[in-house]
C-alpha cells in the first residue's frame, strides 16, 4: 500500500529527530553510529525511504538487545543533497561525535566527498550508491550498498535481449545518474549488440520532457529505457501515446514515484532487488517487519538501508564493541547475506552484487509484480 501524505506524516517527517537514542532499559554505554542522508533537496526522493529503513534497523537491533548487550545510538544528519554539506556533516560525525561507522550518504557526489574524509580515518562508510570512479577502489573503508552503474546497464540489457528478445532500443535519461548509466550502456553493448535508435537527455529537475519523448517516439523503438530519478518522463511518454514497453533502472522503483506517475504507471518494467508483494524467502522477515512498522511495503532503498545498519552491526559484533574503526572496517569487509541481496564487501567493486542479484518487476495497476527472469544466465 503506498504511503499516503497526510498532514500527520508530513509534520512527523519534518519534525524527525536528528538523534535516535536507545530507549530506557539499556544500562550499557551505547555504540554511536552516524547517518548522512539526503532528507531534503533533489535526493530526498530516495533519501527519505532510506531513512525509514535505517531507523527501523536501529530499532530492531536495540529491541533484540543491541550489539553485545550495548544499544545503538544513531545520529542522523541531512546533507541537503549537497556534497559540501556532506563533508561538514562527516567532519562532525567522525571528529566531534566519534561515531564507529557512517550509514549513507544517499548520492554519488556526497559519497565521493565523504569518502575523502572518512577513508583516511578508516571509518566504515556504507553509501547507498554504486562504485562511481576507479579511484574509489582504493578507499577500502567505503562499502557500497547498491550496484555499480556498469552492472545496472547490464541488468537492463540482459532483460531487453534475453527476455523481451528485442534489439531496437531507445533511451531517455537524465543529465546526472542517467548520464552515467547511458555511458555504461554504450560500453557494455559490445556484449549485447543492441541498436540504440535514439538517446535523449533531460536536465535534472525538468518538469516537462515532451520534446525528448516525441523524438523517441519518432524512432518507433521496441522498448524505451527511462533512466533517472523523476516520474515526469514516464508521464510525458504515455501522454504522447508511446505504447512500447517502458523499462526503468533502480532509481524510480518506489511507491512515491509510482504515485507521481499517475495513470502512466502501468506496464513499466523495473530492474531492482525487492518486490515486497512477492518477496523471496530471505526477504520475507524484513518485509513483514517493515510492513508492521510503517503499514506500507518497502522497496530496494529501504532494504539497502536495513542491510547497511545490519552489516555494520555484524562487523561491530565480530570485531568487538570497543574495537577501533579500522578493525570494524576489516570485520565488515567480507560476505554479508542481507534482505536486499547477498553482498561481498571484499569484492573489487566493494559490493559483491552480481547480475543474478537482480529481480525484475512489472507495474500493473500501481502494484509491482515479479517477472520470472534471472539475469546473467
Amino acid at each position, binding site marked *: 500500500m503506498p504511503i499516503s501524505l497526510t498532514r500527520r506524516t508530513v509534520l512527523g*517527517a*519534518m*519534525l*524527525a*529527530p*536528528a*538523534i535516535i537514542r536507545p530507549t530506557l532499559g539499556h544500562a550499557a554505554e551505547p555504540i554511536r553510529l552516524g547517518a548522512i542522508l539526503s*532528507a*531534503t533537496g533533489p535526493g530526498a526522493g530516495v533519501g527519505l525511504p532510506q531513512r525509514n529503513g535505517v531507523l527501523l534497523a536501529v530499532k530492531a537491533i536495540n529491541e533484540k538487545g543491541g550489539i553485545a548487550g550495548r544499544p545503538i545510538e544513531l545520529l542522523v*544528519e*541531512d546533507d*541537503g*543533497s*549537497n*556534497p*559540501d554539506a556532506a*563533508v*561538514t556533516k562527516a*567532519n*562532525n560525525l567522525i*571528529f*566531534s561525535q566519534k561515531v564507529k561507522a557512517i550509514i549513507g550518504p544517499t*548520492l*554519488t*557526489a556526497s559519497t*565521493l*566527498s565523504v*569518502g*575523502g574524509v572518512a577513508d583516511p580515518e578508516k571509518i566504515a562508510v556504507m553509501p547507498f550508491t554504486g562504485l*562511481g*570512479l576507479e*579511484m574509489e577502489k582504493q578507499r577500502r573503508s567505503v562499502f557500497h550498498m547498491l550496484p555499480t552503474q556498469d552492472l545496472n546497464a547490464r541488468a537492463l540489457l540482459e532483460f531487453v535481449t534475453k527476455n523481451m528478445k528485442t534489439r531496437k532500443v531507445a533511451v531517455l535519461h537524465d*543529465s*546526472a*545518474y542517467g*548520464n*552515467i548509466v547511458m555511458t555504461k550502456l554504450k560500453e557494455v553493448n559490445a556484449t549485447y549488440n543492441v541498436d540504440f535508435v535514439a538517446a535523449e537527455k533531460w*536536465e535534472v529537475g525538468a518538469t516537462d520532457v515532451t520534446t525528448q519523448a516525441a523524438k523517441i517516439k519518432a524512432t518507433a523503438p521496441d522498448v524505451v529505457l527511462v533512466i533517472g530519478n523523476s516520474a515526469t518522463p514516464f508521464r510525458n511518454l504515455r501522454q504522447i501515446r508511446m505504447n512500447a514497453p517502458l523499462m526503468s533502472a533502480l532509481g524510480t522503483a518506489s511507491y512515491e514515484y509510482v504515485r507521481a506517475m499517475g495513470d502512466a504507471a502501468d506496464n513499466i518494467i523495473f530492474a531492482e532487488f525487492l518486490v515486497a508483494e512477492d518477496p523471496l524467502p530471505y526477504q520475507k522477515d524484513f518485509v513483514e517487519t517493515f510492513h508492521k512498522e510503517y503499514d506500507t511495503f518497502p522497496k530496494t532503498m529501504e532494504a539497502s538501508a536495513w542491510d547497511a545498519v545490519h552489516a555494520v552491526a555484524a562487523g561491530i559484533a565480530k570485531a568487538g564493541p570497543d574495537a577501533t574503526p579500522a578493525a570494524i572496517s576489516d570485520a565488515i569487509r567480507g560476505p554479508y547475506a542481507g534482505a536486499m541481496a547477498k553482498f561481498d564487501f571484499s569484492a573489487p567493486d566493494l559490493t559483491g552484487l552480481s547480475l543474478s542479484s537482480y529481480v525484475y518487476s512489472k507495474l500493473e495497476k500501481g502494484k509491482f509484480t515479479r517477472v520470472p527472469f534471472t539475469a546473467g544466465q
Partner: protein
Amino acid sequence: MKYSGYILLAIVWLALPFVLERHAIDLLVFCGFYAVAGAGVGFLLGQGGIVNLGQAAFYGLGAYSSAYCTVQLGLPAPVGILTGVVVSLCLAFLIGRPILRLSGYFLALATLALGIICSNLFYEAEFITGGTLGIPGVPKLSVLGFALDTPTKFYFLIWPVAVLCVLSMRSLMSSRIGLAMQAMRDAPEAAMVLAIDISRLKLWMFLISSVLGSVAGSLFAHYVGFVNVDSFGVERSIFFLLVPVIGGAASPAGVLVGALFVGLVPEALSVLGDIHRVLFGLALVATVVFFPDGLIGLLKRLADTCIPARRQALKMEQSR
C-alpha cells in the same frame, strides 16, 4: 582605545580553534569561502547597485581550474589558482561588456542566465569537469612546505584572505574610484555628466567580483579535495547573494557577518530535524524585514548604544 574592539576580535579569532571542536572550525572555514565569494557580490550590490546571480559560475571556474590543473595535469596549486583567475577574468570581460549595458531586473536576469549556462557547461564538459562524478583527489594546499591539511590550519589562511578582501574594498571605496562608484549607483545620469565612464566602471567592478569568486572556488577545491557540479548551481549563487544582503551590502565588513550567518545558522537549526530549512527561511525573512541595513547595521546600532565613547560621539553629532 580606538582599535580595542578590533584587537578583541583578533584575540577571539585566534583563540577559537583552541576552544571549538573540529566540526565548528570546519564550518568557519566554509564561512570564510562564503565571505570571499560574497565580498565580490556585495561589492557589486553595495557600490554599483548590481544584483549578481551568477557568482557560482566564477566560483566553479576557480574550483575546476584548480582541480584540473593539479589532478589531471599535475601542476602546482598556485598555477591552478592563477588559471582560474585568468579564465574568470576572460569570461567576465567577454560576458560583462554586453550584459553590463543592462540595468535593474534585466541585468540580474542576465547574471542568472550566466550562472545557469555555466552550471550546464560544468555538466556537459565531462572531459574537464568529470561531469556528474566530478574530480576527486584535489591535493591539499601547502604554504612554504607547511601543508594546510586540517580545518584549523585552513582557518588561519581563509579568514585573513577574507579580511584582506574587505580591507581592499574599504580602501577602494574611499578612493576617487569609490566615489565615482557611489555616484554611478546613486545618480547615474549625474555621474555621466561628470564624465564618469559608467560602462567601464561597471566592467571593472564585475572583473573584481569574478576574481574573488574564482579565488574562493580554488581555495574551496583544495580544502574539500573534491569538486562536483552540485556545488556550483544557481542555489549557490543565491547563497552568495544572501551573504551581503543579510550582512549589509553598504559596508564591506557586512559580508563577514553575513557569511557567518548563512554558514552557521542552518547548522545550528539542523538539530531540530527536517524543519530546519523552513526555519532558516523564516530567519532570513525576519532579518531582511527587521534589519534593512543588514546585521552589520544592527551591530553598529548596538555598539552606539552600549559603548559609552561611541554613545557620546553619537550624541555630539546629533547635537550639532
